[in-house]
C-alpha cells in the first residue's frame, strides 16, 4: 500500500512537470526535448532562494512558478516561435542544443553535485495507518498536484482562454480570422507549461534530486507521460503519470536490480500496443 501511495505522489510530481510538455507537444505540435530544463531551472531557483536567501520553502514556490514562466516567455519570444512550423527533426536538434546549454550553465554555477534541500519541519514526518505509512510531504504533493490538475482541466474546458487555445491549435488561421490573438495564446500557454514544469522541478528536488544531468535523466519519463496520456489531454496526462509513478516506484521496490529498465520497457510496450492512437491528433494533420 505504501508503494502505491508513494507511487501516486511521484506520479503527480511527474504530472506537474509533464503537463506543459503535453500541451506544447500534443497541442502545439512542438517537440520540446528541453522541457526538463525548465523543471531544472525551477529546482535551482528554489534551492537558491531557500539555501542562500533564506526564503521559506512554501514562499519560494510561487516565485519559482513566476520565474520559470518568465523564462518560458523569454525563450518562446526569442527562439521557440521561430520553429513552430519547422520539421520535428529541427525542433529536436534545437531543443537538444538548449539542453546542452542548460546542463553546462547549471554545472558552471552549481557544480556537478546533488543540491541539498531542507524541507520545513511541518512537511516532514510520517503518520502511520494500518498497512500504510503516509509521508507528510508526499501527501502535500498529492494535494497540490490534484488541485492543479483540476484547475487546469477547468481552465481548458470551462474558460474563454481554454476555448481560444483549443481553437488556436485546431486551426491557427481560422482562429486568427475570428480575432483571436494566436501569438498571445501560444505565449501564455508556453509560459504556463514552463511555470508548472519549474514548480514541479522545485517540488521534486526532494524526490527526484537535482543536478545538471536532470533534463536528460528524466526526459524519457516526460515523453512517456505524453505518449501514453495522449495529446494535450489533462486527464490522459494525469492517468499516465499515475501509472508511471506507481510502476516506477513498484519496479524499484520489488525488482531494484532492474532499475529504470521497467519504465523504459513500459514505454516501448505502450508504443507497440498503441502506435497510432498515441499521437492521433498529429497524425490527422
Amino acid at each position, binding site marked *: 500500500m505504501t508503494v502505491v501511495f508513494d507511487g501516486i505522489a511521484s506520479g503527480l510530481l511527474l504530472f506537474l512537470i509533464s503537463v506543459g510538455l503535453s500541451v506544447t*507537444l500534443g497541442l502545439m505540435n512542438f*517537440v520540446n526535448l528541453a522541457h526538463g530544463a525548465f523543471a531544472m531551472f525551477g529546482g535551482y531557483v528554489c534551492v537558491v532562494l531557500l539555501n542562500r536567501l533564506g526564503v521559506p520553502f512554501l514562499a519560494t514556490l510561487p516565485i519559482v512558478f513566476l520565474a520559470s514562466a518568465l523564462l518560458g516567455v523569454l525563450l518562446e519570444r526569442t*527562439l521557440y516561435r*521561430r*520553429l513552430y512550423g*519547422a*520539421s*520535428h*527533426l*529541427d525542433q*529536436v*536538434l*534545437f531543443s*537538444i*542544443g*538548449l*539542453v*546542452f*546549454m*542548460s*546542463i*553546462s*550553465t547549471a*554545472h*558552471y554555477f552549481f557544480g556537478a553535485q546533488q543540491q541539498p534541500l531542507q524541507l520545513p519541519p511541518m512537511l516532514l514526518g510520517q503518520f502511520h495507518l494500518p498497512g500504510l505509512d503516509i509521508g507528510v510531504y508526499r501527501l502535500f504533493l498529492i494535494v497540490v498536484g490534484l488541485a492543479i490538475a483540476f484547475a487546469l482541466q477547468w481552465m481548458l474546458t470551462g474558460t474563454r482562454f481554454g476555448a481560444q487555445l483549443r481553437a488556436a491549435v485546431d486551426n491557427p488561421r481560422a482562429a486568427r480570422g475570428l480575432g483571436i490573438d494566436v501569438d498571445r495564446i501560444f505565449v501564455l500557454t508556453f509560459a504556463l507549461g514552463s511555470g508548472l514544469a519549474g514548480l514541479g522541478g522545485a517540488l521534486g528536488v526532494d524526490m527526484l534530486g537535482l543536478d545538471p544531468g536532470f533534463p*536528460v535523466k528524466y*526526459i*524519457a519519463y516526460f*515523453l*512517456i507521460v505524453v*505518449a501514453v496520456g495522449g495529446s494535450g489531454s489533462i486527464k490522459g496526462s494525469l492517468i499516465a503519470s499515475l501509472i508511471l509513478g506507481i510502476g516506477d516506484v513498484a519496479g524499484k521496490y520489488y525488482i531494484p*536490480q*532492474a*532499475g*529504470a*529498465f521497467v519504465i*523504459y*520497457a513500459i*514505454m*516501448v510496450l505502450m*508504443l*507497440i500496443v498503441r*502506435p*497510432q492512437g*498515441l*499521437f492521433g491528433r*498529429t*497524425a490527422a494533420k
Partner: protein
Amino acid sequence: MSRDISMRAEYAFWLLPVLAYFVFGENLALLSQIAITALFVLSLDLILGYAGIISLGHAAFFGLGAYAAGLLAKYGWGDPLLGLAAGALVAATAGFASSFLVLRGSDLTRLMVTLGVSLMLFEAANKLTDFTGGVDGLQGVEMQPLLGLFSFDLYSKTAYWYSLAVLFLLFWLARRLVRSPFGLSLRGIKQNVTRMPALGTPVHRRLVAIYSIGAAYAGVAGALLTQTTQFVSLDVMAFSRSAELLLILVLGGSGNLYGALIGTIVFMAAHHFLADINPQYWQFWLGAALVLVVLFARDGIMGMLRRLVTRGAQ
C-alpha cells in the same frame, strides 16, 4: 566537366588521411577515433540523411557492436575481423527486429521508440554487470593481431590504418548504394512518402532494409572502437552519444556522404582543442552551435561550401 572536378576533389579528400599520418604522427589515437566516429555518422546519414528516418537512439547499435566485439575478444575470439563481423551482425539483427517498431507511425513515434529502445539497452548494459562490467566498463579485451600480422601497437599505427581501411571500404559501398536505383528510391521516400507506393515501391521493406544496413554500419563502428581501445565503456550507448551524432551530421550536412565525414573532422578537431580547456564550456558551445545551425545554416558545412562554389562560378 564538373564531374571531373568532383572526382578530383574526392581523390584529394582521401589523400588527407594519408597525409595526416605523417603530419600528426603523434596523434594517431585521435585520428583513429575520428575515422570511427565518421563511420558512425555515416551510418546515421544513411538512415536519416537519405531515407529520412529520425532516430534519437542510434547509439544503441553502436553499443551493441562495441559489446559484441568486446565480449568475443574477452572470451578468446580476439580476431579483429571476426569481431567486426559479429558487431555488424548483432547490430543488424537488432536493427531489423526494432525496425518493425520504429517504422510504423509518425516521426514523433519514431523519436520515442528509438529513444525508448536505446534507453532500455543502456539500462540493461548498466545492470548486467557480470556481463558488461556496468559503469566500470568491460575490461580484459585482448585483441589478436590483425590478419595475424599486425598487432595493435602503443602508437595506434595499426589501429589507424585498420580504422581508416574499414571506413574507406564501407564509405565506398555506401557511395555505390546511394547512387543506385535503391538509393534513388530512398531519396524518393524521404522527399515524398505519399507518392512512392503509387509508383509501385514497397516503402516499408525499403526502409527496413536501410535501417538494418545503417544499424550494421553503426555496429561495425562500435566494434572498431572496442578493438582499437581494448575497452568498452558504458557510455557507448548513452543518449548523449546519439544526440552528439545528430549534431555532427547536421553540422556537416545530412543527405551527403562527404558532409558526414567533414562534419566529423570539424567536430572532433574542435572537441580536441576546446574540450581540454574546459569541458563545461565545450558542452555549452556545442549546444549553442546546434541552436544556431538549426536557425541559420540548416544545410550544414556542405551546404555552405556548395553556396560558395555556386557564387564563385557566377
